[in-house]
C-alpha cells in the first residue's frame, strides 16, 4: 500500500463529509426536508469486512443506499456484489462532475437485485479514468461510452471506447460543468454542417 493509494482512498470521504457542512451553512428552504444519514447494515459490514478500506462512506439518502467505493477494486467489488450479494442487474451507470473537488468525478453505478428487490448505488470517485465493468454487465458497454462521451472519463478495459451520441470528431465533453450550455464545437459545425453557428 503506497502513500498515493492511501491518499486516493481517503479522498472520497472528504467531499461527502463536506456536504452536510455546506447545507448547514445555508438556511434550509424547508426544515422538514429529507437529509442523508449514515448507513450501517449487514451488507455494508460484509462489504467492509471483505474489501476493507476500499469501501468508503455508506449513507442512506431518501431511503436509498449509497456506498462510496474506491476505483482500484471496483471490478472486484462489483463481481462480489453481482455474484454473492445477487445484485445481478446494472440499472444505470453515469457520472457526476464535481468540478471543484478532487478527484473531480463520481461514477455512479445503480445496481438492482431481483432476488432481494433492493437497489444499491455505488459511487466511485475518479479523476479521469475508471475501470470498466462492461465485462461484468454487457449493458455497461454503451453506458460507459456515453459517460466517456459526455464527461471524458476513460474506462479502462472497455472493448471499444468511442463516442456514442456525439459525432466521433467532436471536441469537448458537454456534461462537464465547465462546458457552457451554449458552447459547441464550432469547427466541427462549420466543417460538417456548413453553417457558422447554431446559436
Amino acid at each position, binding site marked *: 500500500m503506497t502513500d498515493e493509494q492511501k491518499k486516493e482512498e481517503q479522498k472520497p470521504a472528504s467531499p461527502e463529509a463536506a456536504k452536510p457542512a*455546506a447545507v448547514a451553512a445555508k438556511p434550509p428552504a424547508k426544515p422538514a426536508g*429529507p437529509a442523508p444519514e449514515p448507513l450501517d447494515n449487514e451488507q455494508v459490514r460484509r462489504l467492509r469486512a471483505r474489501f476493507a478500506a476500499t469501501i468508503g462512506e455508506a449513507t442512506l439518502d431518501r431511503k436509498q443506499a449509497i456506498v462510496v467505493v474506491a476505483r482500484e477494486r471496483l471490478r472486484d467489488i462489483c463481481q462480489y456484489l453481482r455474484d454473492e450479494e445477487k445484485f445481478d442487474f446494472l440499472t444505470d451507470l453515469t457520472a457526476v462532475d464535481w468540478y471543484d473537488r478532487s478527484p473531480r468525478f463520481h461514477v455512479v453505478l445503480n445496481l438492482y437485485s431481483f432476488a432481494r428487490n433492493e437497489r444499491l448505488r455505488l459511487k466511485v470517485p475518479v479523476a479521469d479514468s475508471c475501470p470498466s465493468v462492461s465485462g461484468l*454487465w454487457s*449493458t455497461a*458497454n454503451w453506458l460507459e461510452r456515453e459517460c466517456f462521451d459526455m464527461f471524458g472519463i476513460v474506462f479502462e478495459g472497455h472493448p471499444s471506447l468511442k463516442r456514442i451520441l456525439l459525432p466521433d470528431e467532436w471536441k469537448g465533453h458537454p456534461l462537464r460543468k465547465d462546458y457552457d450550455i451554449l458552447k459547441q464545437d464550432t469547427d466541427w459545425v462549420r466543417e460538417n454542417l456548413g453553417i457558422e453557428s447554431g446559436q
Partner: protein
Amino acid sequence: MAQPQDISTTVLGADEIILNMGPQHPATHGVLRVKLKLDGEKVIGSECIIGYLHRGVEKIGENRSYPQFAPYVDRTDYVAAVSNGLGYCEAVERLLGVEAPPRARWVRTILTELQRIASHLLWLGTHALDIGAITPVFYTFREREEILKIFEKYCGARLTTHAFRIGGLQYETYDGFEEDVKKFCRDFEEKVDEYGELLTENRIWVERTRNVGILTAQDAIDLGVTGPVLRGSGVRWDIRKAFPYAAYAQFEFDIPIGERGDTYDRYLVRMEEMRQARRIILQAVDSIPEGPILARVGKVIKPPPGEVYHSIEAPKGELGYYIVSDGTIQPYRLRIRPPSFINLEAFDKMVRGHLVADVVAIIGTLDIVLGEVDR
C-alpha cells in the same frame, strides 16, 4: 448509401456486404442508423449509430429550475410524454420529501396507464407495418386518437402534454373525465381483441415473429433490458409491483411474461399489458378519491442537498431519473435512465444470425423511440 464498388466486392459468400440502414429508412422508427454486415441476406454483425437526435436534455436540465425542466422531459420519449412527466415529478417530489395527494395520484395513474396503451398501440401499428401488415396501424391510430382526445380535454395538449406538476396536478379533471375514460375502456376491450384476431393467430405473423430475436432471461438481465422486453424473456419484474409508485399499490393487475423471449412473446406481453392497463384504469376511475390535487411544495422548489434515483415503469421499460441537488433551484446533475437506449443495446445480440427482414422485426419489437435513445 455505401460506395458503389462495395457491390462488386461480393463474391459468392466470400465477402460480406455492408448495408447501411438509416438514418432515413422507412423502418428504423426515426433517425436510427444501423450498419449491417451481411453474408447474402444473413446478418453477421451490426452496429447502431445513434445520436442524430441528441439535444443535450440532461445538460438543459442542469440549467433550468426544477419546474422549468418538466416540459423538456415530455420530449424525450415523445410518444409517452405523460409517463415521462410522472417519472420526473415523482423523482423531484421524492427529492423534496413530499408526496402528491391521493386524488392526484389516482389521476396520474389513470393518465399514465392510458399513455401506456397509447404507446403500445403506436408500437403495435408500426411493428405490424414493418412486418408487412399495413392495416393494423390505422386501427391502432384510431384508438390512440381517443386517448389523445382525453389528454387534450384534460390539459390542452395531445402529444407533449406536460400533464403533471411537481407535487400533484395543476388541473382538476374536467367534467365527464370519468365517463370518457370509461367509454374508452368499454370500446377498447373488443378493439384489442380485434387486433389479436388480425395477428395473434395469423400464421404468417407467427412465422415471422416466433424464434426471431430470442433473448434469454440471462442475456436480458446481463444486457440490462427492462420493460416488456425483459418480461418477454420470462422475468416477472415490473416496477409497478417491485417499487409501487403513484397509486399502483391499490390496484390488482397481472404482469404478463413470455416463455421463449422471442418477438412473438414480446408481442403477446405487450398485448396483455394493454388489457391489464385497461383493468387498472377501470379500477382507478371508479375509486378516485376527493381532495386536493396539489401538495404543498412552496412557490420556489428548492430541494435540500442530496440525491435520489426514482424510476417508473414507462411503456418502454424502466425510466429512471437520478437527480443530484446542491440545494439550489436547479438540479446539480440530472440523469435520465432511458429504457430505449439500453434496450437498443440488446439489438446486436438479437439480430446476429437472422435475415435482413428480421432486422426490422427486431427494431420493432424493441419499441425504441429515438428521442429517448438520443435525448
